[in-house]
């Protein structure tokens, strides 16, 4: 039973790592390799709000969301705009931005034991003989909230519909007056905001280190590749495959092998079905 419950939480955690990445890629085709850096930066922003400015948790959180959104938005207009449409250049730009953010944080000394977020919700409950803290339940809740929220957003709002149009065909979207750069920059802003929401659910479970940014990027890639880079259901499926894969591996072969599971999964999926479980992008080429 504990395997099921903790596997579920681990899976949702992994899906949360990937949700922002998948959203940006799905809408604008930009593989945002600064995703992990933005995720951990939002954690430090919340920490700064709490500890340096003595702000309440909620306000620190809102400010962090605003600032990370602004960062994603600015990254698009300042850097990506110039190389838009050249996938390799986009990848280099986002990766370099992410490395710059993480290395700056390291250089500024944001590592060590003191950088830790308190739980948003204290306490725990006993469920079928398993102790489960509220913060982990919040991870589950956040996962559900984001998936449902994003579904409603892209199906029932004007901007969301523009996102979908862009995702389906950028040229057709342009022909009906949807400005692709504007939508691309909004997707970067929203993807960054989603990272911040994920961060506030997950980061209080441990302490913060800039290197978490690299780790989150690897997990996000693994989950997105498994499920299909641009697919939200795929991202959830990817999270479950990776999360339960890790726990089953721990059970069968020992915990030290858990860490290689995402990497193995990436290799396997790329070899067998490069589009991922729900991905469509390379489906035609695969058939050919």
């Amino acid at each position, binding site marked *: 039973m504990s395997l099921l419950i903790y596997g579920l939480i681990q899976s949702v955690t992994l899906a949360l790592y990937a949700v922002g990445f998948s959203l940006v890629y799905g809408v604008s085709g930009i593989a945002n390799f600064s995703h992990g850096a933005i995720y951990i930066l939002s954690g430090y922003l919340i920490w700064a709000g709490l500890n340096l400015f003595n702000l309440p948790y909620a306000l620190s959180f809102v400010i962090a969301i605003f600032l990370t959104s602004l960062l994603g938005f600015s990254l698009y207009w300042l850097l990506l705009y110039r190389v838009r449409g050249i996938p390799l250049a986009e990848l280099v730009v986002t990766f370099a931005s992410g490395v710059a953010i993480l290395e700056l944080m390291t250089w500024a000394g944001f*590592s060590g*034991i*003191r950088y830790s977020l308190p739980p948003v919700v204290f306490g725990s409950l006993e469920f079928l003989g398993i102790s489960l803290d509220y913060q982990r339940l919040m991870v589950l809740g956040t996962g559900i909230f984001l998936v449902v929220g994003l579904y409603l957003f892209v199906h029932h709002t004007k901007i969301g519909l523009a996102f979908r149009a862009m995702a389906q065909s950028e040229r057709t979207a342009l022909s009906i007056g949807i400005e692709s750069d504007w939508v691309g920059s909004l997707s970067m802003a929203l993807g960054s905001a989603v990272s911040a929401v994920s961060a506030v659910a997950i980061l209080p479970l*441990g*302490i913060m*280190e800039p290197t978490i940014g690299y780790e989150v990027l690897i997990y996000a890639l693994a989950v997105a590749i498994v499920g299909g880079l641009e697919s939200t259901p795929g991202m959830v499926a990817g999270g479950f495959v990776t999360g339960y894969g890790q726990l089953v591996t721990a059970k069968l072969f020992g*915990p030290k092998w858990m860490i290689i599971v995402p990497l193995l999964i990436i290799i396997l999926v790329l070899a067998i079905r490069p589009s991922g479980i729900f991905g469509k992008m390379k489906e035609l080429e695969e058939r050919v």
Partner: protein
Amino acid sequence: MKKQIFCVLWVILLISWVGSVTTFAADEIVLGIPTSIYTPFGKENIKAVQLAVEEINSKGGVKVGDKAYKLKVQIADTRGGEPTTPVHDALMAYEKLITEHKPHAIVVGAFRSEVLIAAMDIVAKYKIPHLGTIAQTPKFQAQFQTDPQKYKYLFRVTTDAAIDAMYANAMLDKLKKDFNLNKAYFIYQDTLWAKAFAGLMSKHVKETGWEELGFDGYAAGATDFSPALQKIKEQKAQVIGMVWDVPLGAGIFTKQYASMKVPALLFAGLVPPIGAPQAPKTIGPAVEYSLNLEFPVGSSLPLKKLPKTVEFLENFKKKFGDLPEAPAVNSSAYDSVYILKEAIEKANSLNADDIVAALEKTDYKGVSGRIRFDKNHTAIFGLENPNETGVCVVFQWQKDEKGNLVRVPVFPEFLAEGKVILPPWMK
């Protein structure tokens, strides 16, 4: 235009070259610190060295003949404490520091044991006295033994995993004797030193009538410990022996241990977020009752019975605003600078071989106890008397009369200021 661009590039190149070649003043002794500078250990070891350097310089420096030399610190980040850094990258940083800054000696040294072992050849090649104070693998001695003449420049001024385990095992014996505990579960970070440390604890419990319920290694970058913690609950382990130094995993483990309400006594061979003075703020009230080994004494906990630990940590706090984060090896870094000073003055020379000969005769009473080196150039530590050897301490987080969480030294007896208290769920 092309000519102008060429000139600008040439000037930039020249400036870069001049900047990279460090010259040191004739009256300076350069101490190189190649370590993982953003880990709590690296960060605090550097501060401890800076404190010692400042004290020595303010008292006139190091005397060689008629001349007094000031100490100067040069730091290089090996990034060895990050799980993703390859050993080779860390070695490059080591060698770069040596070739660019030409230090007279190296202090602190490698963070990760794997880097230390690999760096031994580099240090031997450049013949620089090396006083290591972080990496804990006993493989240092084994490597040293393969060619003592070649590796004579290397000294370990701190404990190693065998000493840490000696203390941990003695503490386990005490728990068994005092409280009749006999079921243990070990979790360790899958790195050289931690595996050696946990392995020695595992061997000890098997030999002394404990039941070992688990011995789980996790990769250094692990982020979920629920499989082991759930097994601990199910199998009703009484003591969790945990050895982990990478802050990220240690932090996650600690919070997960607390949130899963694992009803076992946590004995941290080393789990920095629990042992750190800042733990009640970082981790919360769940740190209460946890036992922590601090190696050696004076690394972060002032001990009433060893006034030098109080003095060092008070000065540290005065200079840097807070006690060291990491509950290990900081006092060794501080002592190493004084040991080096003493050796240079005894040798009356800055020649590496002369300094090494003097270091071999070290007999220094410092913060971490009495430091002498054995035939493997490793500081001698014991369980009995700080006037004879270096010593460590085990402390427990307990509530004081006001309800504040404080660290109470509980072992060994000659340092104890209180007794071990079992958590209410174990009584």
